[in-house]
């Protein structure tokens, strides 16, 4: 019996963290330093716990919950994302001090829900985990202290999110109606046989809608720019990284259900992928706000990840896992710079980056590398990710799709270079003081930059892990 619960340790640990923050939220006097260090310490231990549990395998809760390498790798990524976001919270000026424990509490419950999401192999479990993570984020977005933008972002996120999850639930009811089971393992056997029937394909597509909302894929992307801009910088960093990673994981699980035999599903995914990439990249060009730009860039990156997923091969899934990890690191590096440059917690305009190379050379260098990584320039991890994804698609013969994706990558280079230009070539109107960069921030920046370059040049170890994880899906 003891053995069963060891499988559940990362989640139990998250639950424990949530309880601690709940306790801290009850305390009468706000104490941001205490909250920050408690969060930092526990999140750091969380990464260690997740890493220690990476080799566990087994099933829990009447086989509704599977712990395998695939889920554990994603749990490590989620724990890392959570830890790094907490690292950004030294100056949590975007949120009122008395709300800090609640901020950490909802970040923790969201991480917990996403860890459960990547492990669930049963429709009801997936649905409950997804809703728990969404509701935590619905509360986090309007927590921002401020000027009314947060309310708007919160309302939009809630309304779009609630509709998306209702659509997904309707899809689940069709899938259940067609396959008469809620276990993914059994659905895998039944679904390819009935995938030709309209109810099955409509059901599967509607289910995917709910996840596409999380990933901000084209028809469900409306919330992303507004929420990115309206939420506090740290919350945005979390939504842009950890929640995207979890969405990639669950989309892979669901797409793998079809067994790669459905032409409709592939066509649909190709269309969505192209639409996301193109729309995201074209609209990003005109953005003035850094977080909005990153929002549109995240929409286009959702398109790239879909290329790996729609290849529906082991290589494709492995490349998508690798891409998710690369995206996590690059995006966190971008947000690190955003958070540090706008240390009063306001929205960062791209023009405000002017003169950054003199105000904080290290941050400017990190921003440049992260942005080049997002654009897919070697030798960063972003290039390797894109290369793997495109190679997986070429293997399956989707030449046109890869060409369109490459054109898109070139378009995206334009606005990424605008960011670098602002940081390196533009001079501010008035002389601005140097940005104070603390030692831990420097360490964190150097670590992220090293990770980006080292795993960009020598990705073989990570790739092996991604391949082994992807094999669990097939």
């Amino acid at each position, binding site marked *: 019996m003891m053995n069963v619960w060891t499988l559940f340790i990362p989640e139990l640990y998250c639950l424990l963290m949530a309880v601690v923050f709940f306790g801290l939220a009850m305390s009468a006097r706000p104490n941001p330093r205490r909250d920050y260090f408690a969060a930092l310490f526990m999140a750091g231990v969380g990464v260690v716990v997740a890493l220690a549990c990476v080799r566990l395998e087994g099933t829990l809760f009447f086989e509704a919950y599977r712990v395998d390498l695939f889920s554990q790798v994603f749990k490590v990524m989620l724990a890392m994302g959570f830890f790094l976001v907490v690292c950004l919270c030294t100056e949590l000026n975007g949120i009122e001090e008395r709300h800090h424990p609640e901020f950490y509490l909802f970040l923790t419950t969201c991480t917990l829900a996403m860890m459960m999401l990547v492990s669930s192999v049963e*429709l*009801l479990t997936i*649905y*409950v985990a997804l*809703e728990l993570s969404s*509701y935590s984020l*619905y*509360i986090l977005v*309007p927590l921002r202290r401020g000027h*009314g*933008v947060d*309310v*708007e*972002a*919160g*309302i*939009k996120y*809630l*309304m779009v999110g*609630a*509709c998306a999850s*209702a*659509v997904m*639930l*309707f899809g*689940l*009811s*069709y899938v*259940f*109606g067609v396959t*008469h*089971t*809620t276990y993914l393992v059994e659905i895998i056997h039944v679904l390819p046989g009935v995938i030709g029937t309209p*109810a099955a394909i409509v059901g599967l597509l509607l289910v995917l809608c709910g996840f596409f909302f999380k990933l901000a894929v084209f028809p469900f992307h409306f919330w992303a*720019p*507004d929420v990115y*801009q*309206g939420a506090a910088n740290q919350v945005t960093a979390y939504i842009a990284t950890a929640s995207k990673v979890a969405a990639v994981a669950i989309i892979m699980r669901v797409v793998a259900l079809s067994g790669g035999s459905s032409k409709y599903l592939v066509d649909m995914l190709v269309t969505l992928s192209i639409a996301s990439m193109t729309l995201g990249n074209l*609209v990003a060009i*005109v*953005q003035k706000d850094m977080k*909005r730009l990153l929002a549109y860039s995240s929409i286009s990156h959702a398109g790239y990840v879909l290329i790996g997923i729609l290849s529906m091969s082991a290589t494709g899934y492995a490349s998508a896992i690798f891409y998710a990890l690369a995206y996590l690191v690059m995006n966190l590096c971008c947000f690190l710079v955003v958070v540090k440059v706008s240390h009063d917690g306001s929205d960062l305009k791209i023009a405000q980056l002017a003169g950054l190379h003199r105000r904080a050379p290290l941050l400017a260098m990190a921003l440049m590398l992260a942005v080049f990584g997002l654009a897919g320039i070697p030798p960063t991890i972003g290039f390797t990710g894109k290369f793997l994804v495109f190679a997986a698609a070429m293997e399956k013969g989707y030449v046109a799709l890869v060409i369109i994706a490459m054109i898109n990558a070139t378009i995206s280079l334009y606005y990424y270079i605008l960011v670098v230009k602002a940081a390196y070539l533009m001079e501010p109107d008035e002389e601005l003081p140097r940005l104070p960069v603390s030692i831990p921030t420097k360490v964190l920046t150097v670590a992220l930059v090293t990770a980006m370059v080292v795993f960009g040049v020598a990705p073989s170890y990570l790739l092996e892990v991604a391949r082994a994880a992807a094999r669990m899906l097939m």
Partner: protein
Amino acid sequence: MIVPYSHILMFAGILFAMGIFCAVARRNLIMMLIGVEIMLNAAGLAFVAAALRWQQLEGQVFVLFIFAIAAAEVSVGLALIVYAYRRTGSLDPETYNILRW
């Protein structure tokens, strides 16, 4: 089953479409939330029908969970709406349209 499964699916589909219409067309945040609830109920109906068709209890269990989750959703949603109303004094979604492009 007295009523054929396909009829119930059709009925659930109509209910779902009505929910979407309510959520999209209404100019009041609370009514939009109610629209979402109708969509959830349509899904619940389809689940019960499927449970009856295959004689499997999972569908019914799913509906129980939907009840609980819908309650959580309404409480989060209403809390947010109350907060928004206090800040802006309006329930019209048009008020919340400063962010564009």
